[in-house]
């Protein structure tokens, strides 16, 4: 059978055994919320968490990462810095697994980014299914990211006093083979697994007022919708949404000299298209200076551009931006409002004409 089972009473020794081989990252509690962090002890691991504040993207794209080091002076030279720690990342929910898949595509298509890919190659992803919504803000079912078709090495489903384990890759199989703790699934396990699956889907609500596959088309005819100006007035351009978003990966590159002025590093740091300086050049011109334009750009990227670039929906509906936004901007409301106001009668003649003009 391609299924194994890990009884919950055996998880502690299994994870502790894995920790001897490589770093284990998983959801841990912090100040009443959850974050992904390396664990020192199994007791810190909270697989019962609902959702983390930040996605695990920082383990593939750190908030700050050296990419080059150099020496100045007569013997000037530079060399790449590529840091990659072998890790197991446990407890990634379907939304984050799908988001990570998109990041994998972004960093490997057209110019391979070795800083990202080396970390990715050395990471073993152990996913964890959601048996119920994490809270009222997520909309993963709407974005099609509640199902996982890949992007994991092992995938766990909580079936009560045990986890059903599905293999994703040989690396996942080999991890379980190296450490004791998994056993064969019994028929009883399989029927509990099926019952959990059957009970799961009705618990999640489809919140979009359109088929997810229509979202790029709705956006295509919504470029001049007055909603963007309205949202632009509310939005603070604080960048919280991009900070917590699992599919955001824009970065800046800065140089940092040592105090001796003889050597230094070039670093890559997280950046945000929502911040005013994002599209500003040295001469002073800002190519996206209006807040409303920057906000519109983000929704177009998540709902249309990323989908068209990589074939996966750019937003996974994790709801982190909704929780983080200080002025309660919610993608579901935005997309639904666009649907209602851009297409008052469904695909009317006017809308078709506008769409055809744009394509």
């Amino acid at each position: 059978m391609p299924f194994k089972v890990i009884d919950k009473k055996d998880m502690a020794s299994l994870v502790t055994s894995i920790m001897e081989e490589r770093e284990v990252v998983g959801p841990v509690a912090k100040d009443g919320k959850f974050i992904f962090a390396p664990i020192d002890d199994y007791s810190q691991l909270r697989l019962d968490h609902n959702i983390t504040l930040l996605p695990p993207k920082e383990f593939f794209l750190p908030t700050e990462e050296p990419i080059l080091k150099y020496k100045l002076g007569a013997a000037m030279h530079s060399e790449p810095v590529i840091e990659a720690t072998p890790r197991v990342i446990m407890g990634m929910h379907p939304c984050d697994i799908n988001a990570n898949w998109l990041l994998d595509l972004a960093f490997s298509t057209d110019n391979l980014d070795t800083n990202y890919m080396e970390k990715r190659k050395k990471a073993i992803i152990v996913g964890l299914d959601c048996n119920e919504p994490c809270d009222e803000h997520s909309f993963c079912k709407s974005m099609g990211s509640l199902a996982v078709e890949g992007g994991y090495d092992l995938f766990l489903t909580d079936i009560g006093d045990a986890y059903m384990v599905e293999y994703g890759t040989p690396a996942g199989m080999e991890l379980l083979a190296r450490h004791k703790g998994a056993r064969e699934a019994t028929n009883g396990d399989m029927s509990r697994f099926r019952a959990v699956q059957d009970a799961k889907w009705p618990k999640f609500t489809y919140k979009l007022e359109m088929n997810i596959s229509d979202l790029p088309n709705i956006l295509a005819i919504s470029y001049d919708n007055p909603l963007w100006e309205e949202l632009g007035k509310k939005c603070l351009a604080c960048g919280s949404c991009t900070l917590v978003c699992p599919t955001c990966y824009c970065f800046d590159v800065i140089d940092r000299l040592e105090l001796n002025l003889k050597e230094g590093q070039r670093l890559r740091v997280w950046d945000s298209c929502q911040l005013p300086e994002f599209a500003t050049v040295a001469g002073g011109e800002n190519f996206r200076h209006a807040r409303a334009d920057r906000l519109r750009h983000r929704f177009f990227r998540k709902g249309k551009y990323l989908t068209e670039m990589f074939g996966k929906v750019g937003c996974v509906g994790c709801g982190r931006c909704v929780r983080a936004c200080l002025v309660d901007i919610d993608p579901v409301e935005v997309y639904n409002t666009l649907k209602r106001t851009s297409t008052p009668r469904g695909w009317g003649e006017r809308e078709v004409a506008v769409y055809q003009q744009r394509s």
Partner: protein
Amino acid sequence: MADQGISSPYQPTLAEMVKIERLTKTEKLFTLHLEGGRDLGHRAGQFVEVSVFGIGEAPISVTSSPSRNGVFELCVRQAGDVTGALHRMEPGSTVGIRGPFGNGFPIEQMRGKDLLFAPGGLGLPPLRSLINQVLDERESFGRVIILYGAKDPSELLFKDELAKWEARDDVELHVTVDRADESWTGNVGVITTLFPKITVTPRNTVAVTVGPPVMYRFVLMELLGKGIQDGSIFLSLERRMKCGLGKCGHCQINNVYVCQKGPVFSYAQLKELPEAI
């Protein structure tokens, strides 16, 4: 730590500044030679990311023609941290070079056609690379018309080259300045005032214009007014660039990364990109 065997697209090649020439109050021309002596191998219209270690990296268009080998030239305006550092350098200094990046001008589409070049201000350096490549293969092209506008006579770039182009009878050059000084005897007015001076055969003409963002809409109106087709008008768009690899996101115009699909775009393509001009 650094893995010796793994390459990184962020690692520059070192280059030596073999010559530095001041062109104007704010612009200098740097001639560079890559370590190891290999050619940059660029197309006209491409750019490189120039590293000043300790300060940063900046995208600069290559101004020398690909048909001139061994060294390449960059015309740099002093505008920020990296360009300021470049301006303070002496010949013999070392910088890092990554690239060339971008798509370059579609010179293949221009063979056999009349060419209308309209550089404005700092738009001349990238266009110079194409103009010199065309002049090095002059028989492959029809008419060559150059309409160049600068703010005032002190900001005219490549004055020696302009004189050489003026002297050729197979190049039609018109120059204008927005504001004259006491010694200026040429045209006065913005670049659009040069267009009424020329007539073209629209179906056989390819136009290329490069200049500050504010200029594009007006020059486009002139070009379209002459009947030149959308697919035969090319512009080079600048944006903020960091990685040059289509990853960091700064150069996006709608759904396009300018460092990958541009910086050269046809007007036909730009009609799909509302953020472009």
